[in-house]
């Protein structure tokens, strides 16, 4: 490539931004929301994704600056987007979604679970993590913005 360095590295920077934007949007619409509660299939996805796009960013270049520019740009982007969401929380909820009711008073919201791609087993795991035996002890189960499932137990009646 006979581009002057500044041109070359700026192109790499743009490629890095485009790749991240693509992945974020792709994960938003095609991926599961849960980051915790990963299974083997999800872990493989994350690892393979990183490798799949490596050359898309670096153009197979072994140049040190290519790597540094790419990493640097991504750090900055992460910072700016973070600041943007702090200043405009509405953007965050619009992009990452609102909490979704998964179960209420021991009953499952099957439609929501199917829509959010949450299996009953995953929900039960979250229920157990709250220290409850099963659904009947659940007052409220919500899928939060960050993908975690929060469970609120029913008040225990004294026996």
């Amino acid at each position, binding site marked *: *490539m*006979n*581009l*002057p360095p500044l*041109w070359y590295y700026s*192109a790499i920077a*743009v*490629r890095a931004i*485009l*790749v991240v934007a693509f*992945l974020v949007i*792709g994960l938003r619409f*095609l*991926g599961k929301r849960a980051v*915790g*509660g*990963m*299974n*083997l*299939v*999800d872990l*493989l*996805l994350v*690892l*393979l*994704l990183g*490798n*799949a*796009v*490596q*050359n*898309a*960013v670096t*153009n*197979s270049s072994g140049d040190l600056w290519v790597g540094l520019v790419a990493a640097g740009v991504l750090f900055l982007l992460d910072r700016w987007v973070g600041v943007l969401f702090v200043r405009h929380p509405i953007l965050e909820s619009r992009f990452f979604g609102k909490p979704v009711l998964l179960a209420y008073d*021991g*009953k*499952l*919201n*099957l439609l929501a*679970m*199917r829509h959010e*791609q*949450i*299996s*009953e*087993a995953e929900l*039960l*795991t979250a229920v*157990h*993590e*709250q*220290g*409850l*035996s*099963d*659904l*009947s*002890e659940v007052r409220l189960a919500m899928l939060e913005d960050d993908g975690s499932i929060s469970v609120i137990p029913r008040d*225990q009646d004294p026996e």
Partner: protein
Amino acid sequence: MNAQLAQWFGLIFSHPDLPGALAIAAKTALIYLFLVVGLRLLGKRELGQMSVYDLVLIVVISNSVQNAMVGSDSSLGGGLIAAFVLLLINRLLTWLMVKNPKLANLLEGDPVLIVRDGELLEQPMRKAGVTRDNVLAAMREHGIDDLDDVQMAVLEPDGIISIVPKQSMIHRSQRHFRGLRVS
């Protein structure tokens, strides 16, 4: 100047031709599925029960197949195609697992009971590589300091140890309340 601008854009909006694109898509799909099946056959599915070695293995494998996914292509478009195919297949697998609990069980692994009625179950713990300290730490996270207060502790497939304290209602009957489901 114009030539450089054209080159600059060319570098950014680079993409493979159609046969190349299809090749990348096909190879990526095959590799992802191959790895899922392969790792499952090796017995790895519970992330929580993976040792450091297992994780290293998976990371190295992912790196090793990189060139097999995109081949000699180093364009932006090529990488995005590979990423897109990965996301698509992941979505497909997830959807299948939600629809088919047997498949989910096959790929996701089962929770393992490690404490029953205040008693540490040595064999499952040893098998899962869970130490007494791990269990105690999980208990403290739930605000419990005495094993006798624990009805059951379960190592979930994703690695978290969940603690069910003794005050919880015990339901030995069926877990599925079909009559109460709302959709």
